């Protein structure tokens, strides 16, 4: 009788522990990057300086697409890392492009004037591009290769080492 109870308990407990172990082993905030390997959605949007930027115009060059806002603390912390990397690129190097997320263009202009700006930031007034890229929060950075395919997505603030690794992968 006792071994029957033991067997029954094991039958319930073992799968349960396995389920919880796999469940808690995952970071629930780490969103799976389903877009990797898929073509980057095209867009043509106004930038903060009164111009227009189209993603297609960079075809043939890798693109770093960084979704950010001024109210996002991790974005502010990764800002110098991105700026330094962008300044290191030649005229035919990797293109850096910011997409403003949930923020006032005027505030972003003031912020960039103060914190430095080595590349354009576009404004997405309808949020269409945010949905196209499945952006959950900021910062999120997409690395688009020369063919216009999303090679990687990085969620959270980039440090110099992670950025360098991802840049080498698409270069």
């Amino acid at each position: 009788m006792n071994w029957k109870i033991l067997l029954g308990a094991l039958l319930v407990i073992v799968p349960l522990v396995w389920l919880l172990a796999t469940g808690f082993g995952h970071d629930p905030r780490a969103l799976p990057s389903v877009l990797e390997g898929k073509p980057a959605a095209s867009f043509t949007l106004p930038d903060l300086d009164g111009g227009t930027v189209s993603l297609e115009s960079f075809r043939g060059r890798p693109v770093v697409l960084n979704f950010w806002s001024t109210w996002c603390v991790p974005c502010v912390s990764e800002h110098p890392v991105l700026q330094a990397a962008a300044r290191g690129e030649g005229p035919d190097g990797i293109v850096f492009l910011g997409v403003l997320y949930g923020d006032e263009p005027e505030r972003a202009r003031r912020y960039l004037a103060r914190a430095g700006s080595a590349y354009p930031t576009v404004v997405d007034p309808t949020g269409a591009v945010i949905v196209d890229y499945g952006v959950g929060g900021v910062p999120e950075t997409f690395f688009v290769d020369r063919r216009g395919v999303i090679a990687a997505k990085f969620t959270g603030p980039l440090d110099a080492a992670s950025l360098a690794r991802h840049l080498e992968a698409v270069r």
Partner: protein
Amino acid sequence: MRSLLLLFFLAAGPAVHAQDALPGASSLPGGNEAGIRARAGALAAELRCPVCQGLSAADSQAEAAVAMRTRVEQLMREGRSDEQIRAWFVDRYGEWVLLEPPRHGRHWIVWLGPLVLLLAGAGVVARRMRIGAPRQDATDPGADLPADLAADPWVQRVLADLERR
């Protein structure tokens, strides 16, 4: 007009096959403005607002949620079915974007698990109740009594009471 109709059927063809639930009105592409609004509201309620905690895209005024609702309506105007629009969002956000777990593969565990546990529990309860209940095949309670004791009127009353039970 004819080309519009053709477009309608071309768009509806795969949609009808892709639809596994909610047949009827929800699979019709286009439709009037109020219909699209209602359909979009219902579909947005199935999509997770990416910047909220446990809210659907229909329940939030966050920029991302508003943008998702706008996109749902736009895709509906383009004539896509609910199933196609769900797939569109899953392609970009992952299955995470669906508030209800999908019904395939290992996801069945969350749908069937509670049912299996309920049935198992009912089985245990039923077994317990059968063990505790008086046995129907019990022998005559007075059968093994000595004759003089069985003749005692008080014992006979007790036995009669037992019979009645």
